[in-house]
């Protein structure tokens, strides 16, 4: 039995937990305002808000309901366009979308409105938190009609009008959001937590952002082992000069962590190129690692951080370096009953001398043609430690061992850098596919490595 609140309605259902939240909303609940655009998290027409109780307050974020198993919303508040619309009037996001002609054919509009409303709901918290902008909130919403300028204007107006709001009560009293939302925290607190289960099922699913793109039908048919319910209180911890991440940490949680922001001053730049806000709100690091895409952004970052995985099975626990985890295309050093629980990386210094680059056909909400990360430590211009990873140039997220071995303990000069590029050129083996020709990826990989050195060791240029 899962239970949650959908808009203002308590839902208790035995409906199969692997069905998508989207289908449950549209087919079971007949709420047709949430649209089906692509079923792969790439258009945002099915965006809903998920509210989670934290310190007596409900914190909302947007997700694409096409990629979320219904079971993952247990104990949460699900808000659709219907639940965000005040009776006989419009909420502020709706009003501004009307005012600025942000809607033409209207099919994408509910998704935009939900995302913008989510931003408004988080505004009281966000006012102390500078990272997320109103435009970030709609980074996962695609519109084919308007050309976005009118939506941008609506978003700016929303930002301006809500800037000083400090509480949910204030949002309600100004008519910015429906009034019933103030009753939600209490209702959520009454829902009991799910007891931990250990039986092995068809598939272990974290958030499902990749699995549901390819195999939604299979996941609907079979029994799933959902794991994101069971959260540790602190997913991101720092111990003995190491950062330890729970495998269930989402991309958004990484991005919003203040200590990580200190370690990586450009964290925001890196992560905003990774997918979109609603996907980052769901996708987990562990999922990104086991999905084993050769261009997995977070894996590329973690490889250059020299990360180590903690892997658990019912009777065992072991550790393995991430760079040794990939045996071949989508082949992992992971047994059927094993699960990644933690990922840790050493903190060499603060901030870490690290850089990440990603180039894709479209800069945002796209999969990389090539991505790359590098960490370097110099001592008197000698390379004491270096980790360099490149995605999209091999069957696995690629750790450039030969190039690294060549560079280690040598004095970094421009000519050394040039020699390293030649070794790199031999070490990588990109293939031509829909994300680019092999020649392009080869050139791009070298360009990105060049940018790493230009950024981290500009003195050689």
């Amino acid at each position: 039995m899962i239970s949650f609140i959908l808009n203002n309605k308590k839902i208790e259902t035995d409906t199969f937990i692997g069905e998508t939240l989207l289908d449950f909303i549209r087919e079971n609940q007949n709420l047709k305002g949430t649209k089906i655009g692509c079923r792969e998290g790439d258009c945002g027409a099915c965006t809903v808000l998920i509210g989670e109780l934290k310190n007596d307050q409900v914190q909302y974020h947007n997700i694409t309901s096409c990629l979320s198993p219904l079971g993952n919303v247990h104990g949460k508040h699900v808000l659709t366009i219907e639940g965000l619309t005040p009776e006989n009037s419009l909420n502020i996001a709706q009003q501004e979308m009307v005012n600025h002609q942000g809607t033409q054919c209207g099919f994408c509009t509910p998704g935009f409105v939900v995302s913008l409303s989510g931003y408004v709901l988080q505004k009281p918290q966000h006012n102390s938190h500078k990272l997320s902008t109103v435009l970030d909130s709609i980074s996962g919403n695609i519109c084919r009609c308007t050309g976005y300028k009118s939506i941008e204007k609506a978003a700016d107006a929303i930002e301006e009008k809500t800037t000083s709001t400090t509480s949910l009560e204030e949002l309600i009293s100004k008519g910015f959001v429906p009034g019933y939302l103030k009753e939600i925290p209490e209702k959520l607190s009454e829902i009991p937590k799910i007891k931990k289960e250990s039986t092995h099922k068809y598939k272990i699913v974290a958030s499902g952002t990749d699995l549901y793109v390819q195999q939604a039908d299979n996941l609907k048919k079979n029994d799933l082992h959902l794991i994101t319910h069971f959260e540790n209180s602190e997913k991101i911890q720092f111990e003995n000069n190491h950062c330890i991440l729970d495998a269930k940490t989402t991309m958004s949680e990484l991005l919003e962590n203040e200590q990580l922001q200190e370690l990586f001053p450009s964290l925001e730049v890196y992560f905003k190129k990774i997918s979109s806000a609603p996907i980052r709100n769901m996708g987990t690091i562990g999922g990104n690692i086991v999905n084993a895409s050769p261009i997995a952004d977070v894996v590329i970052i973690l490889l250059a951080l020299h990360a180590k995985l903690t892997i658990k099975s019912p009777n065992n626990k072991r550790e393995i370096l991430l760079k040794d985890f990939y045996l071949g295309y989508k082949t992992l050093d992971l047994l059927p009953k094993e699960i990644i629980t933690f990922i840790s990386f050493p903190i060499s210094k603060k901030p870490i001398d690290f850089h990440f680059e990603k180039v894709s056909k479209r800069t945002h909400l796209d999969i990389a043609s090539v991505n790359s990360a590098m960490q370097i430590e110099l001592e008197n211009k000698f390379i004491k430690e270096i980790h360099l990873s490149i995605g999209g140039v091999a069957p696995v997220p690629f750790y450039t061992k030969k190039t690294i071995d060549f560079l280690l303990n040598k004095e970094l000069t421009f000519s050394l850098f040039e020699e390293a590029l030649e070794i790199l050129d031999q070490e990588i083996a990109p293939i031509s596919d829909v994300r680019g020709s092999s020649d392009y990826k080869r050139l791009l990989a070298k360009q990105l490595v060049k940018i790493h050195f230009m950024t981290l060791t500009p003195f050689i240029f």
Partner: protein
Amino acid sequence: MKNKDSWTHVTGKSIYIDDMITRSDTLHGIVFASSVAKGKIISIDYSKAEKAEGVVRIFTYKDISGENQIGKVVQDEELWAKDEVEFCGQPIALIVAESEFLGRQARNLIEINIEEEEAITTASEAYEKNMILGKPRHFCSGNTKEAFENCDFIFEGKTFSNGQEHLYLETQGCYVIPQENDGLKIFASTQAPTNIQVIVSRVLGIPMHKIEVDVQRLGGGFGGKEDQATAWSTMAAVAVQHLKIPVKIILNRHDDLYMTGKRHPYESTFKIGLTKDLKIKAFEAKYLQNSGAATDLSLAVAERTMFHATNSYFIENVKTSVYSCKTNLPPNTAFRGFGGPQGMFVIESAIAKAANEIGVSKEKIQYKNLIQENDSFYYGQKAKKVETKKCWDIATKTFDFDSLKKEVENFNQKEKYFKKGISIMPIAFGISFTVISMNQARALLHIYQDGSVGISTGAVEMGQGVNTKIVQIAAKEFGLNTSKIKIESTNTTRVANTSPSAASSTTDLNGKALLQACNLIKDRLKKIAANHLDEKEEDLFFESNEIKGKQKSIVWEDLIELALKERAQLSEKGHYITPEINFDREKEKGHPFSYHVYGTAISVVTVDCLRGIYEIDKVHIVHDFGKSMNEDVDLGQIEGGLVQGIGWMTSEEISYNGNGRLLSNSLSTYKIPDLFSIPKEIKVKALETENDSAAIYKSKAVGEPPLMYGIGIYFAIQNAIESFNNNYDLKFHSPFTPEKVLMSLYEPLKQKNPSK
């Protein structure tokens, strides 16, 4: 007035096909299609699928009572493949099941054996094998051969412009309900309700009057739901004819991308000749259109390419040819611009090449050759009320092109790894269907006894705002608040024999039809009011919910009550045909367009020369609106069209493999512009012209023309690359993806190729 559907759109209450209330026994259709681009069907085994859970029946060509033929212009497209398949994604059967999910599960169980043959995927391959649809077209004016002899500069080149996926957010779909006496009611997401009626009638072998097609609205169309929307309704109709149970088909995104045609890719060659003073003396072009496996609208698209071969320029000697090449891709189809953008890309490429070779800026050649009043377009239409030069002059002055260009130069001198590029893109786009008979529309107007108004037209609302403008027309004519006016769905029983909502002319045609209906009723009401108020008819006017005379007035509702008592007719129809258009396809000369829409866009981009990516800094436009009747709607069309054109020129890359299988088959591999890839600044300045009464209230058509402003981005990017890499050899191969940009930035010095 804002989009009349704004309120329901933002609250999620607008109804699209998939949101309709359905009968509880409704069945769902899943299309089974070929996974091979060309081959003979040896055998198909449906037995496992038929036995699968929830499957009611599987329909194939054998179940068709009429003809297995859905081609509208040319009858060369089967509804369901019989013996052969000609493209990957070609429908073979329809699985009707209790749910979409069960239908999809059953689809995996169908076993098919196709003897695969070599597929043709490019236009040039098809051209070499003489696989041509229809007759090639040849337009000619002056004598290019002689003219080239007198040119100081002659350049030749080739271009490629890729296709474009419509990517309407709402996928193709329909809901078909059985009616009494073997009738059918079809709710469809289509730009062409009558097309569906015609084709269903043919395939089912029943008269058109048994088929009612109804369209509430579309979640985007862009041309992709003109001819391509027909197949799905027809399949569902066949199923309903047999089962007598409602059937719904909603293509999922993957099926939609994989089974439907797109904008036509073009492979073209050009030859351009100029004199020393940069006058283009002669231009020749040969266009190879990749039409896909069936004719669809390809011939009309090809024709429009010809009409826009010289874009906004006057060239005395022009010779063009177009070949619609049959390939093993899904039938390519209408897409905003309808062949016009492909034609314009070639002439702009030719000018870019000439400018580069001569060593002058592209805009110098462009400006020198802009078409002027009383020049003739090369297909014979005399250019009247031309605004090209005016748009250009106002754009370059208002947005200070000279300083923009200076800024770009200064930036490029200062920056090593970032380069800016600038371009100007003028447009002249002809308005009218080029098939003369399609330039007609009808409207049906009811005034109900409480004074509220209901209107039906042949126009389909797909986001372009036509219904908003239709409301405005009635409101203006009757002096009523828009809340008193309702637009009904587009329905073939209320307005019959409609042209598709296309060619930018839907508001012109249907609006003018409505205007006629309004005027008939107004005249009638004036008579009654004049009598009642003791005023002269000619003094009466409709304003603020009243009919006013010199002295007295009567409230609208009272007048309607009075009219009803007098048994006046309060319903009217209007019928409009566009006057003064003609085209002789023997001579390839005539006056095909009611009027032209003009404009000029200035674009500035910044290329990141380390990564090969780019940002669009600004697009500044002067656009000829005529006299816009709705600036909100029209601005939305300009911005939306521009961004769609930018997508076509930059990130939207259709990709098929050599076997004709679509590789860009999802939103993760086909990238349309997102919020962050649009120009940082878009400025649109209206050029108000009062000249064209052919447009409704002199408010010119606005749907398609702005898409072509996006072509300027290609040349702005190219301009930036030229200032980074001296070795770069100009290429005209769109879209300009980051891959092509990076490869161009680091292109080594070209080896002289003796064969070219």
